[in-house]
């Protein structure tokens, strides 16, 4: 487990967050995923769900049930905090389950890559170089959020990092692949958004009626290839 003990604070009166840090790091993210997985396997009375993010895990619970089930504690928050602290003693960052490597084809045609030229120009390289650098890396899915199935992945090579657009688009097409700072992500649905769009995929990131509605899971590794 991480040497520095994580910060635990209430996220309202029905949830608490265990914060391992405030930086994008594979190690911290593995801790977050492992802690979430621990509570999926080891439910407690009143547990609702566990949600991993970049470097934190949030546990949602029903305070009424927790208070009744853990009368020794002054508050439900104290009880769940105690459970989280005990869990932190027992998990390791390797408890993140099976790692999957997923390949995702991308189109880089001009209609799909709305901001490719901008990303190239702001990094003083050519569009082809941006694509080449982008495809060279394997990315980790740190978390899903923002939209159903929207994946926050990282980290892109520093030669192509680009801040978000000053003015977000009101409509980003479904399947768009974007860059925001050192993050990359795929718009699972058509949505407003401010990421720099460099390509588009046909792979359905979100299929509401599938057994697993989202194509990617936190902890997955993703390789992008050029779509033929």
């Amino acid at each position, binding site marked *: 487990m991480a040497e520095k003990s994580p910060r635990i604070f209430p996220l309202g*009166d029905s949830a608490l*967050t265990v914060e391992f840090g405030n930086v994008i790091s594979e190690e911290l993210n593995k801790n977050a995923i492992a802690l979430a997985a621990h509570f999926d396997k080891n439910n407690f009375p009143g547990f*609702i769900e566990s949600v991993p993010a970049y470097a934190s895990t949030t546990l949602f619970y029903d305070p*009424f049930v927790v208070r009744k089930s853990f009368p020794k504690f002054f508050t439900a928050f104290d009880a769940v905090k105690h459970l989280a602290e005990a869990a932190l003693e027992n998990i390791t960052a390797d408890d993140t389950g099976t790692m999957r490597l997923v390949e995702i084809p991308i189109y880089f045609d001009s209609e799909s890559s709305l901001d490719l030229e901008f990303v190239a120009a702001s990094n003083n390289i050519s569009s082809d170089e941006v694509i080449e650098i982008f495809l060279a890396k394997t990315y980790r899915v740190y978390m899903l959020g923002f939209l159903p199935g929207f994946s926050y992945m990282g980290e892109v090579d520093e030669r192509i990092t680009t801040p978000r657009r000053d003015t977000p688009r009101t409509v980003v097409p479904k399947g768009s692949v974007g860059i925001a700072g050192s993050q990359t992500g795929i718009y699972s649905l058509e949505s407003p958004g401010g990421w720099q769009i460099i390509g588009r995929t046909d792979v359905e990131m979100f299929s509401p009626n599938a057994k697993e509605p989202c194509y990617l899971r936190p902890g997955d590794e993703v390789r992008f290839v050029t779509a033929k």
Partner: protein
Amino acid sequence: MSILIKKPGILTTIQDLGRVGYRRLGINPGGAMDRTAARLLNILLGNDENEAVVEMHFPAAEIFFEKNAVFAIGGADFSAELDGELIANWRPYFAEKGSTLRFTKKISGNRAYLTVCGGFKIERWLGSSSTNLAAKTGGKDGRPLAAGDHIPLSLQIKAKPRIRNCHISSNLIPYYRPFPTVRVIVGAEFPLLTKSSQGLLYVHDFVVSQNSNRMGFRLKGAPVELAEPFELLSSVASFGTIQLLPDGQLIVLMADHQTSGGYPRVGHVITRDLPLIAQLGPGDKVAFHLIEIDEAEALAAEFELELNFYRIGCKFQANSWQQ
């Protein structure tokens, strides 16, 4: 047989208490904005409290009963009429086949709910009847109700049942008002605000802006400032989280909020007071009052205990209608 939506109203949707267990996939819980209203109405009719309800804004829907039903309305008061007769919130009524429910005037609040005894027949998506408008799924085909929609009822009521003078006890009904003080607990980044902003948050009042919807209410007020610039990594957010936007204004996340967010969290509206804020509309005002987590939990527990007593009483009466 069903209810028939004759006029759809503005943003009329099917909701329940939300879709839990999928936040990690970015699928937010959604659900009724005023969960207390949805729960109270369902319990009043002897339903499971998570049964689907119709959430309405003003102008609200016009609804035609194609079969007999026992129903109740609550939340906002839109001056409801059943075949021209004024009916009250928080009481069960019998609608005979062929009758029409209309909402004629906005008296108070912004979201009204309709429940029927036995519930609506709605196909659940990921365990919930709530409409996810962003994902265009859940509820009625993932969209607001439209004229001509039929929402089937689960229960067959043959003859007019005896409905005694029963209503929801007034201490369970939230004290809705256009300028509530809602209780909050501090958020993780509250200590990073300037001392004067920390004080300001709980002294000033804030106006709900036009730019407010089921995802969040943007507030207008004196700007709130961080002592030093601070970048927060995307982290999980919740219904009632009060975030500080880069322009110094606040947003309260509501039922359709995104699962994650990267803005500093200055506070969280307590569960007990969420209905008060959920019933506000543009131009209404809100003030915040800071309490400790133990008090927030105690308030929630107190409400649940009272609700338990109430549930037993209602179930007894509702059983008689269903026979």
